[in-house]
Structure formats: structure tokens, C-alpha cells
């Protein structure tokens, strides 16, 4: 399956192998939305398990955005990964899988990665006025958005 | 003055008919006092029975087995602060519970506890009862409106819509029962003797018609009486906003329906009204279908011996209650904390036993029998209410209306027509 895709995209797919029995692909951000559509239609990966991101501050392409897909027919799971710099936006997968709506909103909420084409991109877990994206490495664990806490809760933030 | 009082004792009509104001007042006091006590007992019974349905104990702390719980509740409600919402309409807010209470208690004027044991025997008994019970809809609508907040109003409108639509179904069932009073068709026993052929609306007349026709209307023209009774039983539950139809109160976003803003004594008036309405409506059912105050099988098991046996029942029930209380006393844990409760329970049991013995005395036995059988049958209905509440989930509002209009009403009309045809043909 990977061979066929490589034939189609050649340089687009940087690396595809397995680690501890789980195969994953690192892909160019430019072709990712097409690839996801092909994976869903062609390769029957009809269930998007999860969309998440990991923050590597020291790398120049700071963020890894990861799609975990699963195919009922083939009982197989695959991870598609792309690397993007801070501030870059990622094409949204809501048109491919409806479940991406909230998952992408959470990634935006926690990491600040924008998904263009998303119907309603705004914070899902944190209050709206919140500044900062907690899951970034530079966001200290005890750091609070002082301004929001004072404005809405009217107390000095405990930390 | 004295003969004015004694003169009534000889005549065998209800005090209302005999125009004897004094005895009418006495009867009113007795009936309303009895109903209030029954409501208290019902409150206790409901909480205990519901608890035992759900494998828990129910109120145990106040008095032996929670017997004093209703009194404790009453005191709590009286002492609770009585809040009137801000811009509520004072007058309407104040009068709404009164209307509901009057409507529910007015029904008892015509309830026949015995051939002479009714406050009066209105010529239009049933019509009066249905009319007055429809008045309580007014009280609910006013309560909802007076609380001046968005959701009690919706709750009130919903519950009144429900009551109005189920009143229609109830009316149909009642009409088919009244039809049976005049049509003396061959009962299942083939006994063709019928009354003078003219039906009556008066409650006592209906019960006597059942007696003359030797059949309870429940079993007359076999399936029809039963279906009519079924419709009435369902409409009855919906009329009092209980069990599967208690939607306005329990809807999750309407919180407590029309009596949300009421508190303290005013709220307890609503509860009193609701329970009184429940007892009233089930007494209509008993009068119409289950042969009012007559003992079961009045005609098949006739004869002196059976009369004697059945007349012992009141005494037996009270003695049984005494025995249960005594068993409770024995099983009460020996801890000093429980000593007061054991004494209380023992006293209660002794009183019950005493009543049981008195009821065995022959003069008392004959007089009390009618009332006992009537109350026993109504008690059966009360148990049904609690049973419904424990088992059935709640209807959604549109399903509730669908059942009311699309199921009960057509069947009601059908039963009505069939009863008429059968009555004429047979």
C-alpha cells in the first residue's frame, strides 16, 4: 500500500516505516489533505481515530500534527504525520471525516495551530477570552492567564 | 331542637336531601376530617411503599417506622418561610391554591360512602363531580400565571392542557357507565330483572342500580364495562397529574411545574389538593364500576352465613394491622434509643386492636360495613397510584396528548356506542 502511494507522490512522502509494529508516514504538508482523502476513499481508512499534535520547540519546524486512522475492513491502523512551523496553518480534515471538527478545535485550543477550512474554529475546552495555548512547551505548568482570572473570577490567581 | 336532630336519624335519606342542616354539617366535618387524615396516611403510605418497591426503607427516623413523618412534614411546611415572588400578582397568587383545594374537596359532597352516608344525594351527582373537578384546571392555570416567571407558566399551560384533554376521555367513560344504569340487559347471570328503565345521574342511584342488576358495571356486557373502566382508570391518573403522566412537574427543564414558586404552607395546600383529588377521582371510579359500598359478591354468595362472614372483615383488617404493629414491636432493636419508639408502636398496635374488637360488636358491624367496603376499594386504587409511580417512566408531552386524543377518546366513543346498542338489543 505504501509503495503505491509512493509511486503517486514520490518526494511527497518523506518516510514510511513501522516502529514497534505500528506503521506511520511522514508526509509533506502540501499534499496532506489530498492524501487523507485518498486514504479514506481508496484505502478504506474510514475511521479517523484521533488528530493531535506534539510541540518540539528546538526544531525549526516546531509542530508535528498527527492523524491516527483506522480501517474497519482491513483492521489496520496508520499514523500520518506532518511537520509545520509555528504560525503555519493546516488544511482541515472536517470535509473528510466529520469527527475532525472537535478534534481540530482542541488542537487549536491547546497548540494554537490554525486549521483553514474548519467551519467553526474557536476554543473548545478553555474559556474564550483565554490567552496562550497550554500544551506548548513554553507555557509553564503553573502559569495562568492572570488577566482572564482577575476579569472573570475576580480573585488573584492561586498559583 | 332535639327532635330536629333525632328526626333525621329515623329517615333513611342523606342529610342533604332531608334538609337537615345540622346533620349535613356533621357529615361535612366527618368527611373533610376523614379526607385530611386519609391524605396524611396516604403521604406516609406512599413514601413507605415506594421505598420498599425500591429495596430501601423509607422514613424510619420520625416515630416508629416513620409513622410521625407526615406530622413532622406538616409542621415543617407550616413553619417554613412563605415567599411570594417579586412582581407576582398577589391576589391571584393567594387564591390559586384555594381554588384547587375547594375544587378537590367539593367533589366529596356527592361521594356515597353508604346508602345514607353521603352529605347529599344531588340528582345530578356525576355531572356535578365532573364539573367541579374541571374547576381545578383554573387553579393550576392561575398558579402558573401568578408566579410571574417563564417556566411555571409553561408548566401550568401544559398540565392544564393535559387535564382538559383527559377530561374528555373521562367524560366518555362515565357516560357509558351511566348508560348501563338504565339499560337492564341480561347480565352475565341471565337475570333480566331491571330497574324502572330510567337511568339516574345520582351516585346513590347508580350504586343501587348495580345492586338491582346483580352485576358490577365492571363486568356488565363483559368487555365493554371493563374497557370503559380501563379508560377511566388511565384518564383518572392523567387528570391528577400522577405517575406516568406527571410530566409538568418532573420535566427536567421545567423544574417543578406550576407550583415552583410556592413554598411553605401554600405549597402544602397544593399537595393536599392533589391527594384529595386522587381520592375523589378513585371514589368516582369505585362508585361507577365497582359497586360502591356493597360487599363483593353480594348476589352470588348471599344468605345469612356469608353476610356474617363478610361483616367480620372490618374487624379482621384492624386486628391484622394490630398484629403487624406487634410484630414490629418485637423486631424493634433492644437499644435504649429505640425504647420510645417501641412504646409508641405498641400503643399504636393496642389502639388498632381495640378498634378491631369494637368493630366485631354486631350493632357497630352493620353500620360500619358499607363505609369499610367503600374505603377498602378506594384504598386499592391508592395502591395502584403508588405502583404506577414506582414502575412507569414518564411520557413525553406529545405522546401524552397522543394517548389522550388518539387512543382513549376513540375507544371511549366506541364503547359508548356499543353499550347503547347492546343495551337496546339485549
Amino acid at each position: 500500500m505504501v509503495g503505491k502511494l509512493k509511486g503517486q507522490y514520490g518526494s511527497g512522502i518523506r518516510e514510511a516505516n513501522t516502529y514497534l509494529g505500528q506503521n506511520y508516514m511522514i508526509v509533506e504538508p502540501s499534499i496532506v489533505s489530498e492524501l487523507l482523502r485518498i486514504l479514506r476513499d481508496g484505502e478504506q481508512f474510514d475511521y479517523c481515530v484521533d488528530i493531535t499534535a506534539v510541540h518540539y520547540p528546538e526544531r525549526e519546524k516546531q509542530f508535528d500534527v498527527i492523524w491516527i486512522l483506522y480501517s474497519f475492513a482491513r483492521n489496520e491502523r496508520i499514523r500520518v504525520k506532518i511537520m509545520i512551523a509555528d504560525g503555519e496553518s493546516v488544511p482541515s480534515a472536517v470535509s473528510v471525516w466529520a469527527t475532525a471538527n472537535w478534534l481540530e478545535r482542541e488542537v487549536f485550543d491547546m497548540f494554537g495551530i490554525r486549521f483553514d477550512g474548519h467551519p467553526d474554529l474557536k476554543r473548545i475546552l478553555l474559556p474564550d477570552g483565554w490567552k496562550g495555548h497550554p500544551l506548548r512547551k513554553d507555557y509553564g505548568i503553573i502559569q495562568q492567564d492572570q488577566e482572564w482570572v482577575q476579569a472573570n473570577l475576580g480573585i488573584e490567581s492561586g498559583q | 331542637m332535639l327532635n330536629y336532630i333525632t328526626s333525621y336519624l329515623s329517615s333513611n335519606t342523606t342529610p342533604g336531601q332531608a334538609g337537615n342542616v345540622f346533620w349535613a354539617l356533621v357529615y361535612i366535618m366527618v368527611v373533610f376530617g376523614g379526607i385530611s387524615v386519609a391524605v396524611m396516611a396516604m403521604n406516609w403510605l406512599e413514601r413507605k411503599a415506594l421505598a420498599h418497591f425500591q429495596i430501601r426503607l423509607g422514613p424510619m427516623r420520625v416515630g416508629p417506622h416513620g409513622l410521625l413523618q407526615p406530622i413532622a412534614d406538616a409542621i415543617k411546611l407550616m413553619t417554613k418561610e412563605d415567599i411570594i415572588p417579586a412582581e407576582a400578582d398577589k391576589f391571584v397568587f393567594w387564591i390559586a391554591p384555594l381554588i384547587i383545594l375547594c375544587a378537590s374537596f367539593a367533589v366529596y359532597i356527592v361521594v356515597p360512602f353508604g346508602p345514607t352516608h353521603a352529605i347529599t344525594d344531588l340528582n345530578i351527582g356525576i355531572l356535578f363531580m365532573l364539573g367541579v373537578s374541571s374547576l381545578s384546571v383554573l387553579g393550576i392555570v392561575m398558579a402558573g400565571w401568578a408566579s410571574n416567571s417563564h417556566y411555571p407558566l409553561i408548566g401550568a399551560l401544559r398540565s392544564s392542557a393535559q387535564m382538559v384533554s383527559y377530561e374528555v376521555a373521562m367524560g366518555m367513560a362515565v357516560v357509558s357507565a351511566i348508560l348501563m344504569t338504565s339499560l337492564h340487559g341480561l347480565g352475565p347471570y341471565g337475570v333480566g330483572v331491571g330497574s324502572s328503565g330510567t337511568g339516574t345521574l345520582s351516585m346513590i342511584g347508580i350504586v343501587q342500580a348495580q345492586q338491582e342488576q346483580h352485576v358490577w358495571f365492571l363486568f356488565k356486557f363483559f368487555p365493554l364495562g371493563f374497557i370503559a373502566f380501563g379508560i377511566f382508570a388511565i384518564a383518572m391518573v392523567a387528570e391528577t397529574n400522577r405517575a406516568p403522566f406527571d410530566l409538568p412537574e418532573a420535566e427536567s427543564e421545567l423544574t417543578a411545574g406550576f407550583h415552583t414558586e410556592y413554598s411553605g404552607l401554600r405549597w402544602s395546600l397544593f399537595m393536599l389538593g392533589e391527594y384529595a383529588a386522587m381520592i375523589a377521582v378513585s371514589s368516582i371510579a369505585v362508585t361507577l364500576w365497582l359497586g360502591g359500598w356493597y360487599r363483593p359478591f353480594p348476589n352470588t354468595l348471599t344468605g345469612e352465613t356469608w353476610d356474617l362472614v363478610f361483616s367480620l372483615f372490618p374487624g379482621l383488617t384492624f386486628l391484622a394491622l394490630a398484629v403487624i404493629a406487634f410484630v414490629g414491636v418485637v423486631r424493634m432493636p433492644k437499644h435504649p434509643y429505640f425504647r420510645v419508639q417501641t412504646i409508641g408502636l405498641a400503643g399504636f398496635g393496642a389502639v388498632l386492636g381495640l378498634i378491631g374488637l369494637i368493630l366485631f360488636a354486631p350493632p357497630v358491624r352493620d353500620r360500619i360495613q358499607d363505609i369499610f367496603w367503600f374505603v377498602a376499594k378506594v384504598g386499592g386504587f391508592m395502591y395502584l397510584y403508588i405502583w404506577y409511580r414506582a414502575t412507569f417512566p414518564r411520557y413525553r408531552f406529545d405522546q401524552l396528548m397522543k394517548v389522550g386524543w388518539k387512543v382513549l377518546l376513540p375507544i371511549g366513543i366506541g364503547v359508548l356506542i356499543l353499550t347503547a346498542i347492546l343495551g337496546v338489543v339485549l
Partner: protein
Amino acid sequence: MQEIVQPGMQPVATTFFFYFLSGITLVSGVFVITRKNPVHSALALILGLLAQAGLYLMLYAPFVAGVQIILYAGGIMVLFLFVIMLVNIERAQKEEQFNKQWLVGLLAAIALGALFVLVYVKGRSLFPHAIAQPIENSNTQQIGVMLYGQYMFAFEIASLLLLVAIIGAVVMAKKRI
């Protein structure tokens, strides 16, 4: 009237009750007009109707009294209250009471008053001499017989009229269901 009373139903202090009930009807009638809040006037109207039912009872017409309670107080007035409550009343209350035409009102009142006086003075001759039917227990029956006997035709038309009204209501609300 006293002697032909049927034994079953002794009159109970009728004169007092008569004045009491008609008093209530009059007072509640006045209340209906004067109250600013529509719900209060609706309640006053209900009280008036119930008092009327009491009057019917005194005229040994229990069936009519029962029907009065069920139909008027129980049915129609509930609809009145429904309508009043669904239309929000704050707006209605703010509009100032337009009783500019008190002159026309006065004239109408005088005319009506004159008519009453005329009837009262003329006395019996205006009405047929039917003596009130006192037999109390057959009252319902009598109405039944008359309803289905002589006035069968009128009864059918009335029921047809009601049917049309119901269908009209259903059609109007059909869009919503």
C-alpha cells in the same frame, strides 16, 4: 310556590340565598368591567357564572346548573384564561383605558333600564302562564326528552355548527403540526 314543592327537596332558606347569590353575580359583574388586569376580570366573570349556577339550583334545575358549571366555568373560562395568558398582558395593561364614549354608554344604560322597568310594571301578562315544573327528580329526564323530542332538529344544527368550528380550528393549526 311553597306548597307544590316535591318532598324530596326541602327549600333551604331560599330568600337569603337568593339575595346572596344575585348579590354576588351583580358585584362580580361590576368587577368584570372595572378591573384593569384582564385576568382579574376573567376571575370575576367565573365567580359570576358560578353564582348563576347556584341560582339555577334554586330554581330546581340541577341539570342546567351542572351544565353551567362544566361548560362555562370549567370549559370556556379556561380557554379565556389560556388566551389571556398566552398574549402577554404587560402590553395590554399599558394601553390607557379608552372610555371616551361614556356618553353613548350612558344612553344605552338608560334605554335598558327603561326596558326593565317596563317589564317589571307590566308584570305577568308579558310571559306565558306556564307554572314552573316543580318535579325535581325528573328535571334531567324532562330536558332529555324535550331535547331529543321536540327540539331534535335544533339540536342537530347546533352539533353541526360545533363540528364546523372544530374543523376550522384544526385546519388553522394544521400548519404547525
